[in-house]
């Protein structure tokens, strides 16, 4: 009578079963760090009197949030990360030419069903889309994890989000998770595993499921989980080079609560400033003028996201008062989008296409907002000041809504575009 999260923590803690609230010391299968948190994690490990990572095959660093370097401070941090990777003889290291950690980690075969993964980035919950228990941790915890291969976890309760029905054209998985944020609230799943079930989830691509799990943290979640299926296995084929054992929730697993979402009736959703759970149907905010549109990030920078945006912009020009920044989440995505003519469609419409990185999302790289400006963004957070000035405004939406709005210059219902 266990959920996926409980089963994974039990097996990695060498226990028969675990229950919510218990503290479990568990063996880590893989640990990754973006540059911005990696150096701090290694300082912590050294301070614990540990010189080398526990397993050089299972620890990696990615230079993704800022790429390429934009000033001497972050250039020095990148340099330090490259040196650490060499000193530690890490088998895997991803420099500025690979992409955003949460896209790259699955692409490179580091994620598989049933595993326990930690990342020094809050959106590590993304990887639950592959049936893994994946959670974001800070740098001191990461120092312990990479130094010892172990970490303690409080077994989370599981909240089930059951989504039934068929999404309308131009309604995307982003709309499902924004609706979930509205219903549960920004602390509605604190310390919980969010498990997504139902026919809509089964119909979704692996990439769309990643969008759902990515934003579990925005509800306070410890991880998001989608049970693996044939689509998961197909995505991982040729990427994961070893066997793995998928785990599934038992029919009588105990959930703290179940939220039911009817996707037949779901409209496109927009999270309004300055909270991720301040969500309204697009019809209620349509007409709001925007200055910048961002299509990218670990939430919505995948091939299907760029494709959805290109569909809306094909043969059109973006509004003259709007600038569009489109950033593929990885070089694999960039390459595929290029081959399929998606990049050209976006550029022909007037978008600036950037190299893969976290880009506009976190306000520390490029695409910074001036006071008074409004951003419509496919990323995951709209806190005050997130993308620049504390006097700017960030709205979150799907790639379809973002692209439809880029053309009109105002927030626009993509079903009418």
């Amino acid at each position, binding site marked *: 009578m266990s959920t996926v999260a409980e089963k994974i923590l039990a097996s990695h803690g060498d226990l028969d079963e675990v229950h919510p609230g218990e503290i479990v010391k568990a063996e880590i299968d893989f640990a990754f760090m973006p540059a911005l*948190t990696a150096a701090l994690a290694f300082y912590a490990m050294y301070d*614990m009197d540990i010189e080398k990572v526990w397993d050089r095959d299972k620890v990696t660093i990615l230079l993704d949030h800022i790429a390429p370097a934009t000033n001497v*401070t972050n250039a020095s*941090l990148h340099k330090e990360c490259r040196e650490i990777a060499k000193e530690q003889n890490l088998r895997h290291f991803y420099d500025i030419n690979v992409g955003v950690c949460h896209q790259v980690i699955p692409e490179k075969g580091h994620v598989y069903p049933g595993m326990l993964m930690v990342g020094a980035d809050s959106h*590590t919950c993304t990887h639950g889309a592959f049936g893994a228990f994946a959670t974001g941790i800070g740098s*001191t915890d990461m120092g312990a994890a990479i130094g010892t291969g172990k970490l303690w976890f409080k077994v989370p309760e599981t909240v089930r989000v059951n989504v039934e029905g068929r999404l309308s054209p131009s309604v995307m998985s982003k709309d499902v998770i924004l609706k979930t944020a509205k219903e549960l609230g920004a602390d509605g799943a604190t310390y919980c595993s969010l498990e997504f079930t139902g026919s809509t989830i089964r119909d979704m691509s692996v990439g769309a499921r990643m969008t759902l799990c990515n934003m579990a943290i925005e509800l306070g979640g410890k991880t998001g989980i989608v049970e693996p299926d044939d689509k998961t296995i197909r995505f991982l084929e040729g990427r994961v080079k070893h066997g793995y054992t998928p785990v599934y929730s038992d029919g009588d697993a105990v959930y703290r609560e179940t939220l039911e979402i009817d996707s037949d009736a779901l409209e496109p959703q927009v999270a309004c400033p300055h909270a991720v759970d301040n969500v309204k149907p697009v019809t209620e905010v349509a007409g709001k003028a925007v200055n910048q549109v961002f299509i990218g990030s670990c939430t919505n920078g995948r091939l299907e996201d760029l494709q959805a945006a290109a569909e809306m912009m094909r043969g059109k020009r973006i509004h003259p008062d709007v600038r569009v920044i489109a950033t593929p989440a990885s070089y694999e995505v960039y390459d595929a989008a290029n081959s399929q003519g998606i990049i050209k469609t976006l550029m022909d419409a007037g978008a600036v296409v950037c190299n893969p990185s976290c880009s506009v999302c976190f306000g520390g790289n490029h695409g910074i907002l001036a006071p008074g400006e409004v951003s419509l963004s496919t990323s995951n957070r709209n806190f005050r000041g997130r993308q620049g000035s504390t006097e700017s405004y960030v709205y979150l939406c799907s790639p379809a809504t973002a692209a439809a709005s880029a053309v009109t210059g105002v927030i626009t219902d993509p079903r009418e575009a």
Partner: protein
Amino acid sequence: MIRGKAWNYGDDVNTDFILPGIYLELTDPDEMGRHAMEGIDPEFAENVQQGDVVIGGRNFGLGSSREHAPIALKHSGVSAVIAEGFARIFYRNATNLGLPALECLHVSKEVETGDTVEVDLAKGKIVVNGEKELDFVPVPEFMMEILEDGGLREYIKKNRDKW
């Protein structure tokens, strides 16, 4: 004994408020401290005194896993964060640094900026302006051990065999 002036920022104090994204490239804790709370109060870092206490309402520390946030608070001089509720990663990060993160019902309504706050970790009590007493939710035993050791670094050094 933790004793200092209170700084109350209410509900939903996110990690971008505590340390904005442009400072994530920093690795020097004291430099992070000079930008603590800059996303919500650019005057804070200049005026905070050693020992002061940050107060919050619900979901304190929501957002990023950046340990820069509690590092900045600690190195600005803050001796404890007391809130009605914490986001999970911030709570762990603060504890791992030896910075107490204490849950206390209604604290954001009971304490005003400028009040003097004393915290007795062992007794589970907060005293406001020398008179009003508030109870905080007892720190789980395992987390208390980490706090008593001054953080996870020292805890692991001491307890490597049972880790």
